[in-house]
């Protein structure tokens, strides 16, 4: 008899050492997330995957599953809070979906639709962020960075490099590049790196590929993010 946790009334088996989100994904239960990717060390920073475990808020991507946990994932309150957290990400950076070449392939946008987000709710920060177009094949648009840390982790954990890092404090947080000039062209990133392809938003883009797939035929144009995530992340 395997151990189980209970998510929204459903008994879900888990293996020792699994996090809540891992057990949920395997059982076909979607928990919204942005900084989590099952291929990398959990980070726990976006807080979108917050679930109530025995009445306490926990990040499903970092919190270990334990026998007997009563977990609330689909509740009105949690959905509302997740929407607000997503809106925070939208006002913090500068996100203009209609003019972004990632539209339709963007997880931030996909999650926003999933959470029924129709406006930004909060006042914009209008942060002054730069673009780094120095590299011949890869573009960084800092306006769209949500600090999920996935490029940092991908470069360290999969590419065996250290191209990206997070710097700054609080609202002045920023993504930095490991090169003497601070520019991407002087770093040792390459087109085939995992870090190049991992960005959930349009912050790291491959040049000259943006419109190969027409708008309307993109990932989240065809399927909602919960289905895409479950299909892709189920091991």
């Amino acid at each position, binding site marked *: 008899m395997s151990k189980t946790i209970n998510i929204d009334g459903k008994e879900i088996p888990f293996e020792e050492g699994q996090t809540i989100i891992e057990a949920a994904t395997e059982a076909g239960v979607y928990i919204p997330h942005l900084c989590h990717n099952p291929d990398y060390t959990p980070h726990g920073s976006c807080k979108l995957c917050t679930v109530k475990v025995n009445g306490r808020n926990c990040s499903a991507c*970092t919190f270990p599953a334990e026998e007997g946990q009563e977990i609330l994932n689909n509740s009105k309150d949690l959905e509302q809070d997740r929407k607000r957290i997503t809106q925070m990400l939208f006002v913090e950076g500068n996100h203009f979906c209609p003019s972004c070449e990632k539209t339709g392939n963007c997880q931030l946008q996909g999650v926003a639709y999933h959470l029924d987000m129709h406006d930004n709710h909060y006042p914009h920060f209008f942060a002054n962020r730069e673009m780094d177009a120095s590299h011949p094949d890869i573009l960084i648009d800092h306006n769209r960075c949500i600090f999920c840390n996935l490029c940092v982790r991908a470069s360290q954990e999969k590419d065996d490099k250290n191209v990206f890092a997070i*710097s*700054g404090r609080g609202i002045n947080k920023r993504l930095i590049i490991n090169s003497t000039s601070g520019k991407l062209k002087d770093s040792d990133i390459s087109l085939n790196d995992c870090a190049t392809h991992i960005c959930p938003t349009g912050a790291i883009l491959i040049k000259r590929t943006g419109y190969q797939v027409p708008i309307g035929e993109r990932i989240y144009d065809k399927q909602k993010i919960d289905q895409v995530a479950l299909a892709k992340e189920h091991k």
Partner: protein
Amino acid sequence: MQAYIQAQIDKYEAAPVRLLHILRAIQSEFQHIPPEAIEQVADSLNIPRTQIISVIEFYGFLSHDRQGKYQIFVSDSITDHMLGKQNLMIYFAQQLKVNIGELRADGLVSLNNTSCTGMCDQGPAGLINGYALPRLDRPKIDAICQLIEQQTSLEDWPTDFFEVADNIYRIDLLLKEQITPGDALKASYQRGLTETLTEVDISGLRGRGGAGFKTAMKWRFCSEEAETERYVVCNADEGEPGTFKDRVLLNSYAHQVFEGMTLCASIIGAQQGFIYLRGEYLHLYEKLNAILAERRQSGLLGENILNQGVNFDIEIRLGLGAYICGEESALIESLEGKRGIPRNRPPYPVSQGYLNKPTVVNNVETFMAAAKIAIQGGQWFADVGTKQSDGTKILSISGDCTKPGIYEYPFGTKISQILSDCDAKNVLGVQVGGPSGNFISNQEFDRVLGFEDLATGGSFIIFNQTRNILEVAKNFTHFFAHESCGFCTPCRVGTSLLQKQFDKIVDGHGSAGDIAALEELCQLVKNHSHCGLGQTAANPILSTLQRYPELYQQLLKKISYEPGFDLDASLETARRLTNRDDANAHLVQVEED
């Protein structure tokens, strides 16, 4: 430059865990961290340059941009404000002919604000080249300006400028008499370490940083870990505005603190300990190092302590101006030479702390109390206090009273008693536990100190009837936004949104729905943030909203909605571009019906 930097790298053994010390030295020598220094340190320590850049940008006392040869910070704590800091700061800037937040053109001096420097009982206070400057007033500022213009070296400044007083007003169990160095260890070895841990358990001692975890249980958990490389860490990063008791304990009871750490090390089997000393207490650094040396000499530290076969030593690591490093897992990250970002838990530090090894992190006061308990026995301590809160608590009292300073009280003491002892009159309310704690109004002075009622790390700020409580809440709210580490969304974005939304109301731009929006935002930040900073950042607003709703209501405009930004001001750039300033180039904020 290269030679100086190399000397620092060598001094700190090119250890990445001592990166903060290396950078502190470079900043102090060159008044900033030059790009060449980043490359040199990265190469020598074999760490990515991005780790160094991220550390520079995280800590308040490091900078890419050049600071003055005389680098001045003045504390922006509410207690300093109450002592006239704001006017004094303007005066300081005028006398030095420098703008606040800037470097003077000749590079001689820079003037900045900083968070609470732990001198609330002797403010307004500042720091010059890292050293505390308490009790600032106009005559002292005049003298300081003169010394700076004459480029007098700090060593030749009047020593009383740097004198920090203890101001101890009430002593009880812990402060009554100092232990004789070695006595706690001798008593423990004689009784047996297991038995001594039992005494600590009987004493009921709980963590004095505020969270109140049982000390004996923490030590036991750590000692039961399979990994035998273990560490003891003393959290001396008291950054909570209004707290300064650890400063006094380290100034006058350091032996007892070190003895408590050594006792803990003996019990859990640790060979290395650290004191994480907040950067603002640089003035204590040499003194504490001298006491550590003295203890090594007397066989109370180092190899084979008191011939009991225990090996343990203590190293002081200095912080660099980041409130979040008081959070134990952020502190551990900082000890490792990184940005102070709180870790995900579990695992907890007792199983995976410093270098991912089992680590006990306790407050200065906790170690100090444990040392005395080791001598007196647990019951001595447990006899005092309340059911859930044994013993005494050392408070840092500041604000509107005639005798600000250190007061030790048994748990269970009423707030009214404390206010009477420190001679506070016409009190409006008290902030217990600092900005992250609770505000209580003058209707609640029957409440008592203790984990079951008012838990506190020691900060106790008194406000009299002349104070504007919303100004206080504003100061605290800005403090949290400034100190948020930025790791998680709800705190990083939320504390800045709280600041905007609160200022909108207090600055008179709020309308009907704004209070509800503020409250909703408070709940979101509180419920979803990663660590204690975010979880408590909304407390100042929530507790004043609850107690003084009418104060907020009075500030609201009688219109249904006003945007959070100034429409007319937003057109300023457009007006300049088009060279217009006629009536049609302006917008009114709200169309009248």
